Structures are given as C-alpha cells and as structure tokens.
C-alpha cells in the first residue's frame, strides 16, 4: 500500500533517538578508553629508565615552545592593555589597569592560550610522530623487542606535558603583564607605580593556584588526546596510512581545543 510506513519510520524524532544513543555510547566508550590509556601511561611514568626520555620530551614540548608562548603572551598582554585602558577610561578607573590585565591573564587567558598554543605546536607533532611510528610498524617493533610502547612513547610525553604546561603558563602570564605595561604605561601614559601596585595587590595565591590547576588539567587533556589519536590512528574507519595520520592530527588539535574550553568552564565553575 502506498504512502504508508511504520509510525517510527515517519517520525523524525524516533530516528534521532537511536542515532543520538549510538553517538553517546561511542562517546562514553572513547572516553573510557582514553581514561584507561591515561591510567596505564601515568602508572608507567614512575618506572625505571624514564628520566632521560622525560627530560628529552620536556625539551621538545616545553623549552622549544617557550618562544612562541612568550610571543603570544606579549601580544595578548599588549592587546589587553590597549582594550582595557580605553574601557576603564570611560569609568575613570584607569588605575585598575594592572589588576584587570593581571587577573585576566592569570585566571583565564594564560592557561587557555598557553594550552592552545602548545596543542598547535607540540600536540600536533605528538600525534603525527606517534601515528607515523604506528603505520610504519615501529610500535609493533618496540613490542617485539619487549619494550612497552605505552611506557616508552606515551608516559614521557604525558609527564613532560604535566611539567611544561604550568611553567609555560607562568611565562605567558609574566610576559603578558609586561605586554600590558608596554601599552598601558609606555604607550598610553598610565602611571607605572600604580600599574605594578595594582598587579601586586590584586593577585591572590588562590588566583595563581587556580591558573596552575587549569594548566595541569589542560596538560592531561592535550597530551592524552594527542597521544591517543596518534597511537590508535590505524583503527580509524575513515582513512588508512598517511591519510589516517593526517586525520588523526586534525582530530587531535580540534578535540584538544574544544576540550580545553569545555574543561576551562568546568574548572572555573569549581574554583569560583
């Protein structure tokens, strides 16, 4: 008979629910897999013969990212100084420029922008490097040599991220405050003493601690997502070989950025 179908087939909502359910189940499964992956990698950080590799990764993820992080921090601080100066002028509160710049940087912009910059620079490299090791069977080769690939490849990167993220965030904050000083004081003529007095008096330890907690959370998120995407790039259904590495790198960067912002909101709401 024409024009008939089951009520379920005709109802768009009935079609939406199973799709949403499948997506949710897959998401929960993936999150579970990432959690187990992180747990195994974290436990392996404390095994022997890890120090050398951790130091090497701190150099690549941390030291090699410091220049770009400081550059971004400088201009972020300068823009903040500029924008806040003209906003505060309207309320006659230019003296609060130091407080506004430093609190914005330490509480929010420092951890978030640092994490995004490291994701772009080191996170994508992590995924691509591990992905290439995977598709060229070098990870299988490690296993065949009785070397745990998670211990050798993943744990040092997670450890190095946990070490590097807070340090780079601190750099970012410091350089950002200097950037605010350049625009607010040097270019726009705010009093230097007032600027630094406001910076010093408005920042509490709880702000600094909150910023560091965020950077630690972001370190775990970024390193886990990037390593996970590279490590399992061979299991992608939408591409194989080099294409899978490329797609995994894109996924790693996009997911890391999204989860950084989601986690930022979650952590902020806990801290406030």
């Amino acid at each position: 008979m024409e024009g008939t179908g089951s009520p379920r087939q005709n109802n768009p909502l009935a079609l939406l629910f199973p799709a949403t359910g499948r997506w949710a189940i897959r998401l929960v499964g993936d999150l579970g897999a990432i959690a187990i992956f992180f747990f195994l990698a974290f436990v392996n950080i404390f095994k022997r013969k890890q120090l050398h590799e951790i130091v090497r990764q701190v150099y690549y993820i941390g030291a090699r990212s410091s220049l770009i992080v400081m550059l971004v921090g400088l201009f972020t601080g300068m823009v903040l100084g500029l924008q806040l100066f003209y906003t505060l002028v309207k309320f006659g509160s230019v003296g609060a420029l130091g407080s506004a710049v430093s609190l914005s940087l330490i509480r929010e912009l420092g951890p978030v922008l640092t994490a995004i910059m490291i994701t772009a620079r080191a996170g994508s490299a992590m995924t691509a490097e591990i992905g290439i090791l995977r598709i060229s069977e070098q990870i299988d080769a490690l296993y065949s040599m009785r070397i745990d690939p998670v211990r050798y490849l993943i744990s040092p990167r997670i450890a190095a991220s946990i070490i590097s993220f807070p340090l780079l965030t601190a750099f970012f904050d410091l350089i950002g405050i200097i950037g605010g000083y350049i625009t607010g004081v040097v270019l726009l003529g705010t009093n230097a003493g007032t600027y630094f007095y406001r910076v010093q008096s408005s920042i509490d330890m709880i702000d600094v601690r909150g910023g560091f907690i965020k950077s630690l959370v972001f370190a775990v998120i970024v390193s886990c997502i990037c390593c996970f995407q590279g490590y399992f790039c061979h299991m992608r259904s939408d591409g194989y070989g080099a294409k899978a590495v490329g797609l995994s790198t894109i996924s790693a960067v996009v997911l890391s950025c999204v989860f950084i912002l989601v986690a930022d909101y979650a952590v902020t709401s806990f801290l406030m």
Partner: protein
Amino acid sequence: METMPLIEFQNVTKRFGDKTVLDNLNVKIYENQITTIIGKSGTGKSVLLKHIIGLLKPDEGTILFQGKPVNAMKKGEWEKYRSTIAYLFQNNALLDSMTVFENVAFPLQQTTNLSKKEIEKKALKRIEDLELTEAIDKYPSELSGGMQKRVALARALVEDPKIVLFDEPTTGQDPIRKNMILSMITHYRRKFGFTAVMISHDIPDVFFISDRIIILWEGRVGFQGSYEEATTTKIPLIDEFLRSLDGFQDELTGLLSREAFRIHYATMLGGPAKSVAISAAVLNVRLNILQDALGPQPAVEVLKALGEYTNSHFNAIGGFSARYSRDQILTIFPHTSVEEAKELVARFARKLQQGVLDNINGMALAKIDAKESFDIYIRAGVTEVLPNDKIEQIIERAEANQEIIATHRCNCEGSVQ
C-alpha cells in the same frame, strides 16, 4: 623417539569478527631449523607469527614452548620466553629517528641492566658481524634496502635470541638483493645458531634454504615436512602449490618435468619385452655448497646452465633428461651400452668444462665480498637400465658410481678462487 618441538601449536583457532583466520591449527617448529611457511595471501601466515611473539592471543587452543603452554606462563617466564624471540618485519621497522648504532643498541638499553660500556661493546660486535661498521652513524633512510635488512637483523640478533621470525624477508626485492637476503639468513643462522621461522612467497627459492616447509591452506595446515617429503607426497593441495615449482623447473632447465619423464620412460623403455641396451646417467652439482659460497640465486643459475646444456647435448643424440631432485639431473640413453654412455658423458664433460663452466665467473661476481675460495664439482654416475627398473632404483645405482667429471675454480677477481 620423536624430537620435542621448540614451538607447537595445538588446535589453535583465531577469529577476527566472523572470519576464522586460524582454524584448529596444529604446527610444529623444531630447534635449529629453518621453517618456511608458505600459503596464499590471507591464509593466516602473519597471524601465526604474531601468535608466536605474543602480539596476538589464540581464541582457542594452546601454544607450547618447549612443551610448556605459553598462556599458563607466569610473568617472569613469559618475559624469558619473549626474550628468546626476535621478529624481523617485512619493512624492517627500524626506528627512523635513530642511527644504525642507536637502533642496534636500543633493545639492550631498554630491556637490560648492562652498563653503557657493555651495551656499546655488544652492539658494536653485532654491527661488525653484519658488516655495517661503515654505516654506524647513518640513519636508516640513508641506507640501501639490503643494508637496512642487515641493520634489522643486527638489532634482532643483539640479544642473542633462540628464535628469529622473518616476515616475508624477500618480498619485493630484486633478484640480487633477494639472493643476498636468503644467503644472509642461512649464513647467520649457521653462525649464531638460531631457529628461523620464515614467511615467504618466493617459491622455489626458499626451498633451497628451508629444512622444513609448512603449507597453510585456509587457516589449516595443508602440509608440514621437508622439501623432499613435499615433492614425494601425493596430495592435491601440495601439487597445486608445487606446480609453480614444476613450472619453474621446466622453465629453469628446459628439461622434462618429472611426470613427463616418467611417462616418457614408461612408454619408450619401461616395458618388460625390451631387450636392447639402455643406460642412464645421474649428473649432480652440490647445490648446498654452491649456495653457501655464492648464494641461492647464482646457485640456481649454475644449475640452470647445467640443465640447459644437458638438454641440448643429450637430446641431439636421442637421450632425455629430467631434474629429479634439487640438484640432480637424470638422463636416459636409449640403445646405448654402459661403455658408450660413459664415453658420451666424458665427451659431455669436456665440452661442459670448456663452454659452460667458464661463464660461471660472471655469476660468482654477484656474490659481494666473498672471501672463501671454492671449486665447483660436477659429478656423474653411469649405470645400466635393467628391465622393469624403477626410476628410483636407476638413480640409486648411478649414484653409487658417481665420480667427478668436471671442475671449475671460481675466480671472482681474486676474492673467490
């Protein structure tokens, strides 16, 4: 009493989703042998190797190592078992961000408590053994395919494994490199005394170096045994696999295939009423020795030259020949007495010496850095063919009369004399 296998698969089944890749598989791998696994693509050869090293676990069945189930091993025993195995990947899987030295030393750095000096000493020894000293500071991408294979072998052997698994070591290689890799496997297996398990599609080349052959057929074992057993066993599956070898033999030497030879012999000479004199000669070149000196590919070339010359020489005077084993050619001379046959063989030997063996030097040059001198000996044995003689009986008698009829000393620009 049967020797205990080093590794044994007992009723091993492995499935990936709905597909059964290994189906109730029973395989035995013996110590100090080269075992070659052949089979069509997708029959589970690599899956079998990955089970040995523990990259995959069976869904059903047991894998035994020296009679002990691998899945029942404690962590320490498992680690010890794993330490006895090395795996050579098809694409070498060298760590491309490390130099040759770092690649070779890497397993020792990561899995042992040896001092830096001891690691360096062991790694350098293996690098020297595999003639890689000049490439020690190079990265894998700076090396030729053959050298990369040697680096992979050096890395695999640095921990003195008892078992080395080779996953298609010669696939996609040119004949010279293929020859070099097969020579390398036989040479170093003898030098270091490991058990080799090899997957290969290079029939018949791998038969020349294999002690034992396993034919996989849709996840099951179609045959396991020696090359000789494979060629004498009448199983359709083996015939199908070895047909390529038969074809190769015909193409290789231009001689009759064994089946064609049998028919020829039966129809022309095998009847009981024949009373004319018939003789037979067995020509032999020690392929194993030749192969050790020159490598499998030139050894095959020597055999090919011998076969072609035998065919053209004896066909012209009414004889017919077939390659009856790897390195043995049987020729039947109808209407010829033993004395006449001996004279024919002597004349053949003189011409062979002048016309064919002198060309072998060119083939010997393919063996790079050969340092040992050697002579090629062509042996022949002549016998009378009696009424109702089976071919095996003729070969047996002719072999008993074998003597050297031609020699050739290889002179590879001074390196092989």
